[in-house]
């Protein structure tokens, strides 16, 4: 495959490495037969480059536009895959699973005599819910809310 003609074509296409390029240039300079072959391919290359493109009928664009008018307008994939839809689907499955689990637990008559945790659930909540704790919780909520609002407004500005 690596004939002199192939090398000459590669040289004309500019796809040879520097060392191979120099080698073929030397061959063209030193060998009259190769030089004549090179000149023939050079002219042939120019002729190939001048090939004509065929023209479709005058009504081609109109026909295409009439056909695409019947199709729904294309939408970018990013727009198609809306994150809200994914969150809604995720939320729906989560709620469904929780509802199903609750229903099963509520209706089951689970009894494990050998399994007794003896955990005292009788917490004194008033001891923990102090005004400071409530204010701290609300403050954290406010900070998170402001961060989300900032991100939302930034996104809107970027889109504009």
């Amino acid at each position, binding site marked *: 495959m690596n004939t002199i003609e192939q090398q000459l074509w590669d040289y004309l296409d500019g796809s040879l490495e520097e060392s191979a390029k120099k080698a073929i240039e030397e061959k063209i300079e030193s060998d009259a037969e190769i030089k004549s072959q090179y000149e023939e391919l050079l002219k042939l290359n120019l002729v*190939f480059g001048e090939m004509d493109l*065929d023209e479709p009928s005058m009504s081609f664009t109109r*026909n295409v536009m009439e056909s695409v008018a019947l199709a729904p307008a294309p939408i970018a994939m990013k727009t*198609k895959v809306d994150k809200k839809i994914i969150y809604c689907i995720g939320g729906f499955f989560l709620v469904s699973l929780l509802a199903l689990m609750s229903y099963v637990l509520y209706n089951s008559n689970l009894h494990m005599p050998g399994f007794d945790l003896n955990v005292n659930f009788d917490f004194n909540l008033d001891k923990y819910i102090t005004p400071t704790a409530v204010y701290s919780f609300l403050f954290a909520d406010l900070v998170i809310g402001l961060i989300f609002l900032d991100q939302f407004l930034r996104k809107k500005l970027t889109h504009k």
Partner: protein
Amino acid sequence: MEQELTDLVLIQNVLNGETAQYALLVKRHQRFVFTLALRFSKNREDAEEIAQDCFVKAYKALGTFKQTAKFSTWLYTITYTTAMTFLRKNRLNTSSIHDEETFLQLENQTSGFNANSYEKQDSHTFLNLAISQLMPDDAAIVTLFYKGEQSLEEIGEALHMEPNTIKVKLHRARQRLKEKLQYLLKDEVKELL
């Protein structure tokens, strides 16, 4: 103003709802897509149907076009697959598209011409005639390389072939074109070349 818009800008406009701008993309690429289709179908009517189908498919799938690649390369991939599907449907030369026998058959179909009758025609006519006698994929590779401004890698992507295979086929196609031009033009080839 509109002529200055790049393919990517036009695509973005179409995706944003300005669907009429797709006509500009069609006008810009129709000659090349049609020529490419003609390389496979060898018939103007079929080529027009393939090219039209290709643009409709491209429009429907425009949302999936990854804007990191050239639109033309993506379009030529669609043209190639549409042409192949069309040929399979119409049971034309499909099983033997890469086959030497088809090449010989196609050659025989047009071998009855008299070279003397073409004496007054220019080199473009002879070149187009020689290209039409090549195997479809060889003709498509030569067209993509010289007129489509596509690299060997991009042609490989469009025709689902390795760049090395494209390189071999391109070399073979050029050799055959040279032989055919020599045969078609006989002594005049020296003047042409």
